């Protein structure tokens, strides 16, 4: 039996070069220090795959029309326990994905991993973050319950504040002056076709670039090479370092471009990745079973008693919109747009070789404030919603 399996493997390898592919994929050198931080990237990938699988399942049942959308999901809720859990997994993995991808970006930002030659890794990562956010927002429209309808009303109105073309974009998305059947079918198309069509090639590009340049980033990998500001030299980096591809063997400028110590991706990093991803999947499953995906009453545009509540990831922006007076709303909407543009431009603004977060105040201080503002606005927004 073993011989037959081996022969089959040889046959397959002769035709596909699977052995060298696996060797290349599994035995690449990764940094020893900071390895747990790097698990956030693989956890993001696992959660996106979970989204894909559960999403395919849901498309088999979901009917994207204003008369059937809610009915099809209500059928799951009332008569199909397995389907209901799958929908719960789809929802909770989306929520946790947003959180994990945010943490992954924060880690990359603080550790300066976006610096040369990894600028495009960062740019594709920002693109992925925006797309995942887009998936979450468009996904929130689809159940066509009260929450979905009023989310659609608020969100499709936001582009209207864009100068000159705002009304056109709103009309294009809604398909009419108000939110209705065309809005739902267009949003469904965006959610299951348009955004994934961009998302998955971008994931491929992100991974390819990661493989090209190697995992890199957290300055703690390179701590030995730093000189403190007070002029006290910290111990120099060891002369002999186990440098393996893809890391360059020569120091670049004042910083080493390679980690102090590396290990094989398999089994060391894959083990850590597996632990974190498995833990997250278990959490998702528990939440899906215990809480599930809520479904409110069917959308009723004529209601006057319903109080719309934004999705949690929308809270910071919602809180800003509540705080800022009507005249200044366009100014507030500049913030997220400007924020994304700044994020895309970050590697081209902060081009110095320094990676120590304490030595990059010009980038770290505004970045830390941006993170703090988001956290504080989320807290304040949740407090406000609790007392509605």
């Amino acid at each position, binding site marked *: 039996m073993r011989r037959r399996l081996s022969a089959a493997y040889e046959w397959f390898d002769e035709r596909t070069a699977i052995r060298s592919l696996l060797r290349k994929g599994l035995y690449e050198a990764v940094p020893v220090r900071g390895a747990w931080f790097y698990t956030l990237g693989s956890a993001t990938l696992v959660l996106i795959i979970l989204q894909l699988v559960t999403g395919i399942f849901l498309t088999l049942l979901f009917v994207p029309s204003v008369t059937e959308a809610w009915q099809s999901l209500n059928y799951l809720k009332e008569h199909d326990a397995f389907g209901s859990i799958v929908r719960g997994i789809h929802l909770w993995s989306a929520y946790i994905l947003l959180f994990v991808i945010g943490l992954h970006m924060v880690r990359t930002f603080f550790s300066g991993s976006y610096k040369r030659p990894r600028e495009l890794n960062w740019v594709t990562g920002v693109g992925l973050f925006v797309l995942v956010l887009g998936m979450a927002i468009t996904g929130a429209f689809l159940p066509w319950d009260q929450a979905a309808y009023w989310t659609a009303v608020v969100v499709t109105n936001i582009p209207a504040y864009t100068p000159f073309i705002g009304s056109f974009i709103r009309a294009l998305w809604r398909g009419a002056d108000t939110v209705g059947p065309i809005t739902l079918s267009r949003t469904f198309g965006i959610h299951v076709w348009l955004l994934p069509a961009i998302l998955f090639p971008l994931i491929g590009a992100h991974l390819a670039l990661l493989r090209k340049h190697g995992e890199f980033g957290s300055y703690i990998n390179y701590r030995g090479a730093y000189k403190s500001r007070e002029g006290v030299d910290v111990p120099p980096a060891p002369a002999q370092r186990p440098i393996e591809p893809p890391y360059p063997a020569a120091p670049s400028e004042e910083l080493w471009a390679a980690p102090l110590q590396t290990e094989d991706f398999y089994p060391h990093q894959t083990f850590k990745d597996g632990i974190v991803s498995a833990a997250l999947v278990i959490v998702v499953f528990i939440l899906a079973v215990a809480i599930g995906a809520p479904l409110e009453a069917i959308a009723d545009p004529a209601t006057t008693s319903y109080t719309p509540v934004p999705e949690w990831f929308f809270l910071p922006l919602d809180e800003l919109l509540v705080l800022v*007076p009507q005249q*200044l709303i366009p100014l507030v909407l500049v913030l997220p747009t400007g924020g994304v543009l700044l994020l895309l431009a970050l590697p081209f603004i902060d081009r110095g070789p320094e990676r120590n977060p304490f030595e990059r105040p010009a980038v770290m201080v505004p970045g830390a404030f941006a993170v703090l503002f988001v956290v504080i606005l989320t807290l304040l927004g949740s407090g406000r919603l609790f*007392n509605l």
Partner: protein
Amino acid sequence: MIALLALIAPAFHGLQTQLPAQAPQGNNIVGAQIAIGSLFSLHILIAGLVSGAAELGPAIEFLGYVRQRRNYDRLAHGLGRFITYYFSVSSTIAILLITVLLVGFWGHFWTTIVTIGWWPLFIEAWTFVLQVSLAYLWYYTWEPMRAFKGVHMAIGGLLAVASFLQVYMIDVIASYMLTPTNPQNPVRLALNPTSYPLTVHRTVGNLAYIGFAFGGFCAIRYLRAKTAENKRFYDWAGSFGLLWGVSMTLLQPVVGYSYAKEIQLHSYGSWYKMMFGSLSPVFLWQITLLGIMFLTATLYFARRLRTDEARGSGILKLLAVGMVLTTLLAAQPYALGFSYETVAAAGLNRPFWDGGLINPLGSMIPWKVLALMFYTLIAIAAVVWYLRGLPGVVWGSARRGEQRILMLMTILTMLMMVTMGFIRENGRGPYLISGEMTIQGQQAVPSAQPTPQSSP
């Protein structure tokens, strides 16, 4: 002993006959308010520092460990010493406030609020025990546990958590008094409409306050320092304190505005009083004072860089000009009278060019909101430029002018703390608990003693 008792017993007896039969029941409401208000201000001024130090100290110790810098360790240790000195002072004032003034003057109110907020006050009491235990442990094990820095930092972390909890619990009570909810539901009580904004506002405020305070303290020590090492340390620590204080303060416009918004939504009368009524001049002073604080800090940054000819001083001066203009915009009064309320009552609520007493440039929307946005943006830019210039600074070379600015900042911050406390506590007036218990009403509580009646 018996002879001694025989000697002093008549004196005690005489004293007993002179004591009032019951606590004062509010014959002098204004006097009680002044006594409680001033002692609370003093308590908040010290307790804010202690809470801030207990949260910031462990963070600085951690920073020092990560960056392997002795200065941070020395500063964190100094903050630990401050906590051990002043914790008991702050607690004594708090106990005096509760046992003598609140129970004595506002007994009915105190009984009511303890009944409503029993759980928060119970947790509050235990956080005191936790805080004092951890504070002394953290400070006195500094050297013995140097080899176990991780454990020591964990103790510091617990101290910070205990301090935060303590602030949060008392904020539950303070915010309930402004925006009461269903007192039967402990979750509703803990998450009443202003509890989040007040907790965030006060935590960030305490963290800023301790930064400004030790900045001023270090300025005094710098001027008195005899050795070059001490001069280097106090110069650096003063700058660090101010930088930290400004960094925290620039979160406050958003948090404070959110707090005001919640008051508007849930306690409109108080909000109206703050924005348009008798407290509006104090509110105007507060927003102006915030600008003066940011301006003073920017001037320090510019001067400190100029002293060592480090880069960025010129841009900081430009930012200071921007801050002056923003402060002037923020300081514009809306009503050119005592308050909008009085102007409206006189029928003069129209623009001044139409013969009225309204200055549209002083309106909250959009001008003061814009001023708050500019405060934040200019302050962020000032912090970034100062940090960029810091590698060119030689610690220990600061001049007297910079140290005077640091001391001024401490005074301005204390003024801000008192102003904010005054606005919040008086915003409720005439209520002690908004819409539920008036100061007057609680004072007029009938005595539990039976009324003397003539014999049949």
